[in-house]
């Protein structure tokens, strides 16, 4: 792009439109976090269910100690990505703050559940948080599978209170499959298509 050429108003407008479109097209690969947390939580739900129901293993909830591992992997990946990131959009920043707030909410919720000793509604609130995170993320990055996943999770959160804790593990697995895993894989496909 040269600089000395005299611009007509139409040419100026074209320059503005072209550059704004170029930044709009820079789709980031956000699928990593959805797939990491999706598969991790899904595996934990199913494993706990199997250990509790079929093996009657008393320490079935120990599977959730894998969550801090997910936290460390996310942090390492995020640090590596921020080094590579050449542009920071307002959408990226909003997503960072949203998920930071949700991560804190998940941790706070664990303490509330431990403190009160009531785990009956634990999954209801976790699913509600998945719904908020995926719905807002989907709207911000304009990705319908995440929006639909989030909306379905709002319904699943309301329905989950009708189930026993054991069956809530399966509802939780279904919720994470719909809101994280399926949209996560579709998001990866979209990113790879865009890269080509």
């Amino acid at each position, binding site marked *: 792009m040269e600089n000395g050429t005299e*611009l007509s*108003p139409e040419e100026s407008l074209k320059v503005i439109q072209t550059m*704004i479109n170029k930044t709009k097209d820079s789709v980031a690969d956000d699928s990593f976090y959805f797939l990491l947390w999706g598969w991790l939580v899904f595996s934990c739900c199913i494993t706990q269910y199997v250990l509790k129901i079929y093996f009657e293993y008393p320490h079935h909830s120990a599977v959730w100690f894998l969550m801090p591992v997910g936290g460390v992997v996310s942090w390492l990946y995020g640090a590596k990505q921020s*080094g590579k990131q050449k*542009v920071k959009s*307002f959408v990226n920043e909003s997503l960072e703050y949203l998920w930071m707030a949700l991560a804190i909410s998940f941790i706070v919720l664990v303490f509330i559940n431990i403190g009160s000793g009531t785990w009956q509604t634990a999954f209801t609130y976790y699913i509600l948080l998945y719904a908020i995170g995926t719905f807002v993320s989907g709207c911000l990055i304009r990705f319908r599978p995440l929006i639909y996943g989030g909306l379905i999770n709002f319904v699943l959160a309301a329905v989950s209170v009708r189930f026993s804790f054991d069956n809530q593990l399966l509802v939780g697995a279904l919720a994470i499959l719909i809101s994280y895993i399926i949209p996560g894989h579709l998001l990866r496909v979209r990113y790879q298509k865009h890269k080509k």
Partner: protein
Amino acid sequence: MFKELDPILHSQLRLAVMSLLIGVKEAEFTYIREKTNSTAGNLSVQVQKLKEVGYIDVVKQFKDNYPQTTCKVTPKGIEAFEAYVKALQQYLQAGQQQS
């Protein structure tokens, strides 16, 4: 009465840089160069001009032992860009009325 188009923004590369930065929080010099298809030397001169008039902030730092230059539009830059677009609209509307 037409408003005069801001001479700082009424230049292809500087306008491109401002249009790019207006939509993001911040961008690295290499990213801007890539998106504007400009040479490092030319871009560097134009970035310096935008910085001198206070339209952008330029932060130079080291990241993983490599120099990194990050550019960010300032509130004054946003104001100037908005005024430029408004003036541009006036010219375009006048052009449509004449034709």
